[in-house]
């Protein structure tokens, strides 16, 4: 209601000004020159003309003053916002000044948040680095220890072989660790640029399955894929196949021999869902979110190899592409991971 009235007032003002400024003086001067030259009439017209001029100047000064006041108010508020003070005088009013000031405050908030975010990013990176250092330390000190033992000349031949084997295993672990850390830190620091293309999901799935098919064969796990080859999604083939492989890798790892893995690709309204179901040991509902955390290992899984990076990386890859992962599981019966990729 208020707004309508204000608008009406504005419009009336505009018309009045138009009439006063142009039409009346024009009409006045026209009359002045077309009338028969009677000096009295001419003076009257002249006076009217002058009157309008005065009115005109009055209007001009009035609106100029209003405008200057508005600008000053906005400037004063801008200075206040720069000093990081909030006074709340101009909040929640239906005036132009209030609108501008609230927009300015919003801008300040957004910029402040951006700054805070970049600082958070820096802190996160620092944390990643220290975590990397920590993770690398264990196998490294193991290698050193066994190396020290090996340098003992009195060591028995059989033991030597065994220790060499341990060192080799530790080195492999180190290599695996560093590989995954490089991957995750790349994701973390936005060093990779995703090259999105509208490609076939089936082909990407093929790449991922090839990566784990040997492991699955060894455990005689049956993999069934239900995917229409024409289904497409906007995704980065290399990284997405990596994400899917990480999830499949887990499925193989935690599914007992002769188990089953079933992959369905379903097209939805906005997303393409890649559903990976296994018949493994399952995840307790309270750990649904923990499993995506970096270096999280489920207590019961601590003896299996792994670092707790696979799902973390997978989630990051999918989130960076505008998708998300959901998990649903029944303990002892199996887990179901759903990857959603934007269509």
């Amino acid at each position, binding site marked *: 209601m208020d707004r309508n009235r204000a608008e009406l007032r504005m419009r009336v003002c505009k018309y009045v000004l138009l009439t006063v400024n142009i039409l009346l003086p024009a009409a006045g001067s026209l009359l002045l020159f077309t009338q028969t030259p009677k000096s009295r009439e001419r003076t009257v017209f002249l006076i009217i003309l002058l009157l309008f001029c005065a009115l005109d100047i009055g209007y001009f000064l009035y609106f100029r003053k209003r405008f200057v006041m508005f600008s000053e108010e906005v400037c004063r508020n801008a200075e206040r916002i720069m000093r990081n003070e909030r006074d*709340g005088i101009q*909040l*929640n009013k239906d005036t132009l000044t*209030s*609108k501008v000031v609230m927009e300015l405050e*919003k801008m300040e908030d957004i910029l402040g*948040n951006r700054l*805070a975010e970049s600082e958070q990013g820096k802190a996160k990176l620092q944390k990643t680095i220290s975590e990397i250092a920590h993770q690398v330390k264990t196998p490294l000190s193991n290698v050193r220890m066994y190396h020290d033992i090996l340098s003992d000349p009195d060591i028995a031949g059989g033991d030597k072989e065994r220790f060499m084997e341990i060192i080799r295993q530790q080195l492999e672990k180190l290599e695996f660790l560093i590989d995954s850390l490089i991957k995750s830190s790349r994701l973390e620091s936005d060093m990779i640029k995703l090259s999105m293309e509208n490609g076939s999901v089936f082909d990407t799935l093929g790449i991922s399955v090839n990566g784990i098919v040997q492991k699955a064969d060894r455990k005689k796990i049956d993999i069934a894929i239900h995917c229409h080859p024409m289904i497409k999604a906007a995704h980065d083939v290399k990284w997405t196949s990596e994400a899917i492989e990480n999830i499949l890798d887990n499925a193989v790892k935690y599914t007992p021999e002769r188990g089953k893995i079933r992959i369905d690709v379903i097209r939805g309204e*906005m997303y393409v869902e890649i559903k990976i179901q296994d018949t493994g040991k399952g995840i307790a509902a309270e750990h649904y979110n923990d499993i995506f955390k970096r270096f999280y290992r489920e207590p019961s899984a601590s003896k299996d190899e792994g670092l707790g990076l696979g799902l973390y990386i997978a989630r990051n890859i999918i989130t960076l592409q505008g998708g*998300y992962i959901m998990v649903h599981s029944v303990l002892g019966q199996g887990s179901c991971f759903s990857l959603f990729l934007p269509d």
Partner: protein
Amino acid sequence: MNILQTSNLTKVYGEEPFAVRALDGITLEIEQGSFTAIVGTSGSGKSTLLHMLGGLDTPTGGSVVVDGQELCGLGRSELTIFRRRKIGFIFQNYNLLPNLTVYDNIVLPVELDGRRIDRQYFDEIAGVLGLEDKLKRRPNKLSGGQQQRVAIARALITKPAIILADEPTGNLDSRTSQEVIGLLCATGKKFHQTMVMITHNEKIAQVADRAVRIEDGRIAESRWLL
């Protein structure tokens, strides 16, 4: 930084001895840019809480501070303008106007405020939510999921301080629910919006950064999921 803060919030309906304590001393802080899911069974007081946060209802006691402003001190018209500029709502039944096109529905809060539409931002939102080819349609010609996407766009367009979603997937089937929630989460992150969503569905809450469980008007559990 906390964008929203409540302290000892209470709401009592009716009078003693028949008083019903819908909210019983809720102290909650919500961080800028986070996605919070408020989970609870029906009757736990979660809807009441959301109404308080959005200034749709006045609390019996305690305070709600949104973006540095105490809501209890605001008058009716101030509260209306506050809601228009600072809060985006997403409702279970979408609350779209059937006689306006999708485009008009989305830009309505900006137009109500007598402002210009940031066309670039609009296009971005419509693109992310997949609404570009539906802008001229009427809402009742769209599916439930699509209507809710229009409502999400309408909540985003004013760049509010906080978006409140009241059972946004209550009327959708489970498949569409998952999509809408995923979209809500993704757009929240993309446009750096703070979101508070209430739901009774635990499974849906897993995409949030934080889950707050409400039981009998009290916070029973609050944990970060990331």
